[in-house]
């Protein structure tokens, strides 16, 4: 692949998408695991409300999610105005793109992890408790290792979604080359003008290539984890 196959701006978009998706997955993972655990195993009032909230980005048109993010995390937003003095700014930053991607991918991540947690035999967790492990330790030493394949599946789903996420991102942080122009934004832009389809196609191939690599890596890791358990 010659370097001039894509323009520097396009390479920037590729790099940015990787960064945005990677951070989105990494940062939302702990919260995703926690949420999945809460939904799978805890009983508390508001559980269904939390469940609903998690699914919301899936149900709403992405533009609406982006708009709601703008209202919440914008500079003047309900939450954003409190974060700004702390130096946490999302608007027009790659961090905002990561936030949008994380929010959009969150339901997929949580569902995958939750399914894995529900499949863990609670008798193993009981056995750990009788050996002296408190709840958090049981989680760390038994549950978490056993749900690794689900965590991986959730992460790769979330990563793929983050790589493809467009509507919420452009609405929330718009499209600033080098800062918030992700791969999908770049592709979208090129689809808007007649005749740039070939260029868009090249970017699509890059998107597929990157995600394919992530997917293969996750499958390989999952298989390694399964081997550890199975033999």
């Amino acid at each position, binding site marked *: 692949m010659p370097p001039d196959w894509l323009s520097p701006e396009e390479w920037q978009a590729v790099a940015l998408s990787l960064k945005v998706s990677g951070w989105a997955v990494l940062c939302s993972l702990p919260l995703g695991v926690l949420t999945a655990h809460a939904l799978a195993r805890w009983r508390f009032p508001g559980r269904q409300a939390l469940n609903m909230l998690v699914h919301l980005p899936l149900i709403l048109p992405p533009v609406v999610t982006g708009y709601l993010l703008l209202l919440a995390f914008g500079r003047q937003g309900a939450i954003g105005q409190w974060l700004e003095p702390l130096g946490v700014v999302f608007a027009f930053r790659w961090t905002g793109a990561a936030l949008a991607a994380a929010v959009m991918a969150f339901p997929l991540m949580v569902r995958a992890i939750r399914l894995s947690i529900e499949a863990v035999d609670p*008798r193993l967790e*009981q056995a750990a408790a*009788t*050996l002296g492990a*408190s*709840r958090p*330790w049981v989680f760390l030493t038994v549950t978490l*290792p056993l749900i690794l394949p689900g965590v991986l599946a959730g992460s790769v789903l979330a990563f793929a979604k983050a790589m493809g996420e467009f509507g919420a991102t452009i609405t929330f942080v718009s499209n600033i080359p080098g800062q918030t122009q992700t791969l999908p934004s770049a592709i979208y832009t090129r689809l808007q003008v007649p005749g740039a389809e070939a260029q868009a196609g090249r970017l699509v191939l890059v998107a597929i290539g990157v995600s394919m690599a992530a997917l293969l890596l996750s499958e390989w890791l999952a298989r390694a984890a399964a081997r*550890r*358990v199975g033999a």
Partner: protein
Amino acid sequence: MSLSVSIAHSLGAFRLDVAFQAPPGVTALFGPSGAGKTTVVNAVAGLLTPDAGRIEVDGTILLDRRAGIDLPPHRRRAGYVFQDARLFPHLSVRQNLLYGRWFGRGDGPGLAEIVDLLGLGALLSRRPAALSGGEAQRVALGRALLSRPRLLLMDEPMAALDRARRSEILPWFERLRDVTRIPILYVSHSAEEVARLATTVVHLDRGRVAAQNLPLDKAPGVTLRATLRDYRANVAHLDTPAGPISISAHAPPLALRLRIDAATVLVALSPPEGLLGTTVIPAVIEDVRNDLLHLRAGQALLLARRPPGPLPATGTAVHAVLTAPPRILPE
């Protein structure tokens, strides 16, 4: 140290309502399938919160429903060997064995000692999925022992083990019982195991305590108190209500109960002579019931299996021949 249990619980149509005291040593929970043995053990471990009741170990209250006390399992320090092994599939055998160590305090046997005892040396780096049924159960046993519990719960820990391995492990349990003095609640179907290990036997039946501290196994027989008269040249001479009995022993026995199984008692009409290694006790046939002869010997009752063929009348003076030395039970 001792364990006191008094709980009531409903599972579907099954009602459990038991109360018993377990003195130091091994308390065997004995009873038919479905009697509630596992349920009791789960309640002691804290894996099941009974509808009502109280559980106390050595002054520490593990559960008191009325007082609202219900210690979580990890704070009960009850080492539990499950009916199924429940090994952690993602950990190696070594990691499984050491799991309880991360949290455990107190003293106890070391890894090397347990690995040696249970013959796990070659398995340490394996995953549980690569173990045979008996191997897995041995690892589970080791894991519980290494967690340094203040109470051991064993739900048929040796059902999957072969005879050789069992007889290797049994003496070690005996030592554990005698040395550590932590209470052991032991569920087993094996009368032999129970007879050898149990200090106390709690018979469960359909959720109730049918009997406690009664004859150790379903195999008919009797238990006699004995006092040591003399110990010389590895032979202990005992006085029993049935008369003097001598048994070989490596040390003067301290325990003072003898178990005489009906299957080891023959009945002779005349005093048999020259029968090597037997003890002969004069007796009178008192009754024949359930294929068992009841023999009055001194102040004691002995049981013998009914021999085939015609029987002498009750009241006939006979000789009870013990074809095997009586077993010594711990007091």
